[in-house]
């Protein structure tokens, strides 16, 4: 409970800092709309119209009031409600993230367990090397390689997506595969290595040998002793990676021109459309904070020592 209150406070603090920070950037919605050719008079008129000449304090008050009521604001540059712009792209990103998560997380946990349990097998070593490579290379390299291999050399998936942002799910699906696969490679490597390291670590603990010397069979050994002890660090990583899938996929979306939240963020930044940038930042913060709270409460399920102390 203390944790939730604290996160909420962090969120509010960060929201205010972000507002002031974004506000302090040179340029606002009007300069973005009118560009370099806007005369001072025109820009002034536009600012008057959109209440941009009010003090920061007044605008934060207005903005946060709107936010509480569910109004994300208005993009002068795009002449549209921010929510109307964001929601379809959020859906696209969410679908992509879900596909990536479904491919990567379950397989990462199973493979990580097997690799930790049977580290001497040649196939384990090969998978391990692959995962080091996948974890070290930046997304844009993985994206480009996958594109080259799976779209150009062996044309299975379409490369650059040409769909509109509000495409139907059926239109969306073929375009989801390559970006989702790229993200899946990254998070698979990451969570699999965490699982493997955690299993290796747990296996060297005295209680595992102690259980073995009592005659615990392999099946019970894995399901009752090793896996529950190995999962907590993995839960944390999965939560962080999950948050990243929803909010950090700028590069992958840009690489495939995928109409998601990340792509939108880059566009908004290069347009200097501050009204759009701010809600995207806040969304990222909220997802990050919520996922770490979720991870913490899940870890408690596995560890009785945490359950009994500092409730």
């Amino acid at each position, binding site marked *: 409970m203390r944790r939730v209150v604290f996160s909420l406070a962090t969120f509010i603090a960060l929201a205010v800092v972000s507002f002031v920070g974004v506000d302090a950037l040179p340029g606002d919605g009007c300069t973005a709309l009118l560009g370099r050719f806007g005369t001072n008079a025109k820009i002034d008129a536009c600012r008057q119209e959109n209440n941009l000449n009010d003090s920061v304090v007044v605008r934060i008050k207005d903005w946060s009031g709107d936010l509480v009521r569910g109004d994300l604001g208005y993009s002068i540059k795009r002449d549209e409600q921010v929510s109307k712009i964001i929601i379809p792209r959020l859906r696209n990103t969410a679908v992509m993230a879900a596909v990536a998560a479904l491919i990567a997380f379950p397989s990462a946990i199973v493979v990580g367990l097997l690799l930790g349990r049977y580290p001497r097998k040649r196939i384990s070593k090969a998978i391990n090397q692959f995962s080091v490579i996948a974890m070290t290379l930046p997304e844009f390299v993985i994206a480009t390689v996958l594109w080259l291999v799976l779209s150009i050399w062996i044309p299975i998936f379409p490369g650059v997506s040409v769909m509109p942002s509000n495409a139907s799910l059926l239109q969306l699906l073929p375009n989801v595969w390559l970006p989702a696969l790229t993200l899946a490679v990254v998070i698979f490597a990451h969570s699999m290595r965490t699982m493997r390291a955690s299993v290796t670590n747990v296996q060297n603990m005295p209680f595992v040998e102690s259980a073995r010397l009592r005659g615990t069979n392999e099946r019970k050994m894995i399901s009752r002793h090793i896996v529950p002890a190995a999962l907590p660090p993995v839960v944390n990583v999965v939560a962080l990676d999950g948050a990243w899938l929803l909010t950090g996929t700028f590069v992958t979306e840009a690489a495939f021109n995928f109409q998601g939240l990340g792509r939108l*963020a880059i566009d908004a930044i290069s347009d200097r459309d501050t009204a759009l940038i701010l809600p995207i930042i806040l969304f990222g913060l909220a997802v990050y904070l919520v996922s770490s709270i979720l991870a913490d409460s899940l870890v408690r399920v596995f560890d009785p020592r945490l359950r009994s102390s500092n409730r």
Partner: protein
Amino acid sequence: MKTLLRFNFLKNRVLIFSVLGFHAFVALLAPYLRLLSTDSQDSAALLQGPSLNHWLGTDSLGRDVFSRLLHGGRPSLVIAFAATAISCLIGIVIGSLAALAGGWIDEALSRVIDFMLALPTLILLLLISSFFGQDPLILSVALGLMYASPIARVARSATQTLLARDFIRVARLQGGSRISILFGEVLPNVWRVMFTEVAMQFTWILLAFSSLSFLGLGASPPTPEWGLMIAESRSYMTLNPLLVIAPIMMLASLVLAIQALVDHE
């Protein structure tokens, strides 16, 4: 295939050090090698394959790929070195100080570190680069500040573990001042633990800058930079795959060699 699987290239010391040596050599000496200009455009020879004139062919503007490739690591390496130095300096000082001081100072500094960790790094970099121009100095400082928080966190816990050790207690009993204990006992040991973390950090920063360049907000054209080269050539992948494969190989070999070195330690 079987021998390839058996050959553990991430554990081969000779290979790791020759790759790192190669990159160091190229990055330091590229301007002094008698290479073709990285910028001169040859409109008569666009998107050509390898030839005697152009060892790795030319890009869509007719520029020599080989020459651009050898120069292409320098911007990211310079920024990564500068930013890692900044983040280490700030991170280790703040982290050790928080642990050493304890009490409310520790509490306050820890909050700041948590706060910094929650910031969305990439979007902030994009904002900074977009609004303040793609200035290497600004980007190094921004990267250094942002990546200081993970270093600070590790340094803080490393220092805390150290402070509980008896030789630190003895130093206090024998009249060592906080400063002399910090520099004499704590930092040398913290640094030893931190080496891995710092090397990883260097890779992250290098890749973050390359990714920025790929998005068009890191190195600005016509600077040769691997991420930027990949972004520029992606549309011509079907015509000349070497245009993207070559910078990918350079970038990949560099970061993998660093990673392998870290794992080795």
